[in-house]
């Protein structure tokens, strides 16, 4: 038997109150409870990076974070990166320009990871980008274009 708990999440600046099983991950809370399906589930085991979001401004894996752990901490998902109908975030624009995807499944995670990677100062060279983006796998193998997109966005940001 499970006892549900009620938690308050701060998702993309909006406060959301959810009553859920304590086992629910942040990833499932976003996708199944809040309808925010931009964040993807690849492996559900911390091995692929598709579920990358920002918690307290840092990139983390939402599949290995309980929703309850994130309560009280600001969460940003791909949906929160740019305003609906507004301008794309420069990293999103760079991914489009460089055709940095094929099927697109890994892309929200790649973009969330890249935004943080640039902010951390870990996008200084192609080699550094490859190393610090290693936590995001792409089954389609779009890596060369992803690196080019991150490099361009990093250059624009500096």
């Amino acid at each position, binding site marked *: 038997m*499970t006892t549900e708990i009620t938690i308050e999440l701060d998702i993309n600046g909006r406060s959301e109150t959810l009553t859920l099983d304590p*086992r629910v991950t942040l990833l499932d809370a976003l996708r199944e409870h809040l309808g925010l399906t931009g964040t993807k589930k690849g492996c559900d085991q911390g091995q692929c990076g598709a579920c990358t979001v920002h918690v307290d401004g840092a990139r983390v894996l939402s599949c290995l974070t*309980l929703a309850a752990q994130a309560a009280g901490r600001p969460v940003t998902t791909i949906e929160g990166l740019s305003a609906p109908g507004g301008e794309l975030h420069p990293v999103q624009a760079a991914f489009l320009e460089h055709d940095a995807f094929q099927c697109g499944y890994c892309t929200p995670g790649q973009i969330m*990871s890249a935004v*943080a990677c640039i902010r951390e100062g870990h996008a200084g060279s192609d080699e550094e980008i490859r190393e610090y983006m290693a936590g995001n796998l792409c089954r389609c193998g779009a890596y060369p274009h992803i690196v080019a997109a991150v490099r361009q966005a990093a250059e624009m940001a500096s």
Partner: protein
Amino acid sequence: MKAFTYQRAGSAEDAARLAAHPGAMLLAGGTTLLDLAKCGVAEPDMLVDIGHISGLDAIAVDAGGATIGALAKMSAVADHAGMRAAFPAVAESLSQAASAQLRNMATIGGNLLQRTRCPYFRDPAAFPACNKRDPGSGCAAIGGVTRNHAVLGTSEACIATYPGDLAVALVAFDAAVRLGGRTIAVEEFFLVPGDTPAREHAIGPGEMITAVAIPASPAARRSTFLKVRDRQSYEFAAASAAVGLELGPDGRTIRDLRVALGGVATVPWRCRAVEDALKGTLLEPESVRAASRLAVEGAVAQADNAHKIDLAPRLVARAILSLGGLA
């Protein structure tokens, strides 16, 4: 995943009180615990979230050494300027571990207590025999696929590799784990499997890691962490070496040497035989290579992992020679 309740601890005392509940487990970053709960290996009744306790994530480095709070994130320690200067091998062991996302989540305390990646251990549904999970049930790995299993510190009961990187650097530099009021050397904290592979650490029920302390030394300051993997990044070690070197005033005599191996043993593996063979001698490629072979003294290969016995000493020699400017 078995049902559990969730509690947040406000302080270390609070955590200890909550952890006294039967079936309770501490939750720090969750990158080991939630993963294993999903695999059906960890079956907590209650998770006590210690991740919101304040004051346990400090990193302090001074002339005497470093003290790292148990809740410090791997990324914070890896990027800490004082750590990178005084303990490069420790910082590098963390920056080469897992991924940027995982390093932002995972804590130093949780990192030490991460569990083996033995695929049989991680899959109870398919492989019921595992002495580490279920004492006396046997070992599905022995006679199975053993490419990433250990060659050092194994027993008839278990051959699982300790997968972590940080603890390898810590054991090389005589670090200690603080468990509240008690302090224990990292070298004694990890237990070889023997006939009780389910008992992995010298941590008592209700005890919590509060900090890790590393004494400063010239060898720690001139140190490196080399890690060889099946892919270039985001992978556990096939073999790793944490090495520190102090040379005498002539710049050629080895005054102090620290060597530890990872990815090849059931626990972080200090190689004193290599250290003792080389201390006081001149730094020469030939003698370094010969002595490095002592790192795998007593190694026992399984069907698929004999390569580790060649790999590990080469890594040790490369690390020593590169620190000495000879490679």
